[in-house]
């Protein structure tokens, strides 16, 4: 049977559409004219030219206009969208904006470092890896900007009076912020699209500028939010006398440092998750090897940044205490004390997962049994430290409970909840994870250095000494006054950092020109390791959400702590259960969106689209080819 001509089909479709339209119009006309029938009796009812309904409508309009003309403008301190909590809207949008922003700020840092390594060593693999990381940036940058704009609109809409005040304080920072944002777009896209198009030094310079500009943007945004926690440069009534002091408030620099490090850890973990996803869906051994390596680098970046993060956290906490004891006490001993138990559970999971990934990674190399026997001891140390860190000191209790305990601390477990115990636990966790990494690094090698015995002994002695110092000060802290105890964290942290540096130096010397006992087989790793990478990325993201909540929630019923009180219906601190639900929903949305980013980033590697051709169809020849 012959198929109908396409032109006829189009004409028929147009006729059908016209017919349907005419039908609808006809029915509408009929209904409108049947709505009212004028009275048949002369002199009764409506005038001939209007209906009662028309007159009623006209009266309503007139009344409305009269009412509108007398409306009085009243500034609104708060607005709401339906019955939805304004705080939750802003909370989720801010979190999503920050997560994408953290990723966009972090990836260029380690992409640049990896590219630089590739430039110096001449190894093309590093260049390819750096480009692969950078591919994730383009869409993420757009997401960051979109969520930033959305957040700003919602803040202006829902908290107009408070935003007016923030504008009063920070308006001088807006123009530089916008200028930097434009510059970031220029450097980001020239860095990404200019890959291989410029000389290596010019390209590295673009990457460097991208990092400089991105960091400057973060510094400005951090000033806005830290001012809300620890205001400075303003009088008791809120009048500004120094914009610089408002920027350089107590928590600004600690947050800058903490965020910079945390962003790198978070960015590394998300890039690791991307590599894990690509590994799991890889079709060839070559692809698997590449993405295994990429995942390892991402994880290495994440954990390297994660290890010094607690120290940055202590610095931030000490500055919060220095600004306001009340704020510090709310954080560690008041309404938020249990939040740090949730944080301990998360960090414990992160340490366990990171170590597990390293232990699984030993499977890439043959002959690792010698080192695997140490894993159980490391696991015990990590488990014990995890438990100590997760023990609370002050708890939210009823009045009668507080009286029964003689204070807000548990009579027995309270001893494990003080800073002496927690500092000891976290330092030992860091040392243990560092040892795991050292064991992993040694797999497949045998030291041939003539002084290897002595170097090994030195490494062990340094490790033992650092552990002894950490534990000694941890115990001694219980027998001295608070004034003395607070100083002990310095030797504890110092000994751990020094030990890590010295042991690494010795290890590099020890394994220079080492004999290979087994080849590194990238891609030959248990696939569970890839799910561990995704779990680590999720836990990092969730941890960021939780800590973002405590940083902002700490102000409790204040928009600007001690200065501008929150008088909205949301001026209360929600339960931690509610907060964790909000964090979970936000993180799930983020992961759905980052999945889109991964998908879009992977499109560039796909082959070009080709129209489907029937296998039996004769090859088509274009007129040009015929001529």
């Amino acid at each position: 049977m012959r198929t109908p001509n396409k032109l006829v089909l189009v004409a028929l479709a147009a006729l059908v559409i016209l017919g349907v339209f005419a039908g609808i119009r006809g029915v509408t006309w009929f209904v409108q004219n049947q709505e009212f029938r004028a009275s048949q009796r002369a002199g009764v009812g409506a005038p001939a030219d209007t209906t009662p309904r028309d007159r009623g409508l006209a009266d309503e309009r007139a009344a409305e206009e009269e009412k509108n003309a007398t409306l009085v403008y009243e500034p609104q301190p708060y607005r709401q969208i339906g019955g939805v909590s304004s705080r939750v809207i802003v909370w989720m949008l801010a979190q999503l904006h920050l997560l994408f922003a953290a990723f966009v700020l972090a990836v260029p840092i380690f992409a640049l470092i990896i590219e630089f390594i590739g430039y110096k060593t001449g190894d093309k693999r590093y260049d390819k890896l750096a480009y692969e990381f950078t591919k994730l940036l383009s869409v993420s940058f757009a997401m960051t900007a979109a969520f930033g704009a959305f957040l700003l609109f919602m803040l202006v809409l829902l908290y107009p009076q408070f935003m007016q005040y923030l504008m009063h304080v920070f308006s001088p920072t807006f123009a530089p912020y916008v200028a930097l944002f434009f510059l970031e777009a220029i450097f980001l896209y020239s860095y990404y699209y200019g890959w291989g198009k410029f000389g290596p030094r010019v390209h590295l310079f673009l990457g460097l500028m991208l990092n400089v500009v991105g960091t400057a943007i973060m510094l400005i945004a951090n000033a806005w939010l830290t001012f809300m926690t620890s205001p400075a440069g303003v009088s008791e009534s809120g009048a500004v006398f120094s914009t610089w002091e408002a920027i350089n408030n107590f928590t600004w620099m600690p947050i800058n440092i903490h965020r910079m490090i945390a962003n790198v850890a978070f960015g590394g973990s998300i890039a690791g998750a991307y590599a894990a996803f690509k590994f799991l869906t890889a079709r060839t051994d070559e692809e698997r090897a590449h993405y295994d390596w990429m995942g390892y680098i991402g994880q290495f970046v994440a954990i390297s940044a994660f290890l010094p993060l607690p120290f940055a956290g202590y610095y931030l906490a000490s500055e919060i205490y220095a600004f306001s004891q009340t704020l510090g006490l709310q954080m560690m001993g008041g309404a938020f004390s249990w939040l740090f138990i949730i944080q301990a559970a998360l960090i414990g999971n992160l340490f366990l997962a990171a170590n597990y990934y390293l232990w699984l990674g030993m499977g890439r190399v043959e002959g690792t049994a010698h080192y695997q026997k140490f894993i159980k001891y490391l696991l015990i140390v990590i488990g014990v430290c995890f438990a100590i860190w997760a023990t609370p000191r002050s708890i939210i209790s009823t009045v009668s409970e507080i009286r029964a305990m003689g204070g807000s601390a548990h009579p027995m477990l309270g001893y494990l909840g003080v800073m002496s115990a927690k500092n000891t636990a976290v330092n030992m966790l860091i040392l243990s994870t560092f040892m795991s990494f050292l064991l992993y690094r040694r797999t497949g090698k045998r030291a041939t250095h003539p002084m290897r015995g002595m170097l090994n002994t030195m490494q062990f002695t340094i490790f033992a000494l650092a552990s002894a110092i950490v534990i000694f000060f941890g115990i001694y802290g219980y027998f001295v006054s608070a004034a003395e105890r607070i100083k002990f964290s310095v030797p504890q942290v110092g000994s751990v950092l020094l030990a890590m540096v010295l042991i690494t130096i010795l290890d590099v010397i020890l394994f220079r020109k080492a004999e290979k006992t087994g080849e590194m087989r990238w891609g030959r790793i248990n696939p569970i390791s890839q799910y561990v990478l995704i779990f680590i990325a999720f836990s990092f993201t969730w941890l960021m959400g939780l800590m973002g909540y405590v940083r902002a929630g700490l102000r409790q019923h204040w928009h600007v702590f001690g200065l501008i009180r929150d008088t909205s219906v949301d001026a209360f601190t929600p339960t931690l259960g509610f907060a964790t639900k909000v964090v979970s929903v936000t993180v799930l949305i983020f992961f759905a969106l980052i999945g889109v980013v991964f998908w879009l980033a992977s499109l560039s590697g796909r082959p070009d689209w080709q129209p489907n051709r029937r296998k039996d169809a004769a090859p088509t020849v274009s007129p040009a080819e015929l001529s």
Partner: protein
Amino acid sequence: MKPQSNAWVMAKILLLILASAALYTHIGQLVPQKEVLAPTKIIVDKDASPEELAELGSGIATGKGLCLTCHTVGKTGVLRYPDLAGIATRADAQIEEMDALTYLANSIYHPDDFIVEGFLRGMPAINKAPIGLDDEEMIMVLAYLQSLGGTPTVTLELTLADLGVE
């Protein structure tokens, strides 16, 4: 390694993410759940007895005043901040020629000027923001402190000058 279908990998990743979210949300439900409301002004009859004021002051000390977040009552050993048990008795001997009530009143209005030996500075002025107790609430706290090892005597008729506070 045998490649798995993308759909199966995606399903496992989705399951992992949902399970992780459920785990952390569940941990969040295991800890004590308490909504902390913005503090409200405590209204009290002007003729309230010192004992009644002490009772209200006890509530402030554990609540909006945040006193017992740091201080303990009846604890010994190495403490972060001074224990308050028997404070009414000890206050009398802290500074020469200063009676217990004046010492206690000045300690809570000007905490940095009255640091007990062996302890760090750190107590905020609880009559200022962010805690911001008003003078009546401060008297209630004073009554509570007097009740710890002594008998409360203060009333709401007292002024700052009566208390010896500058």
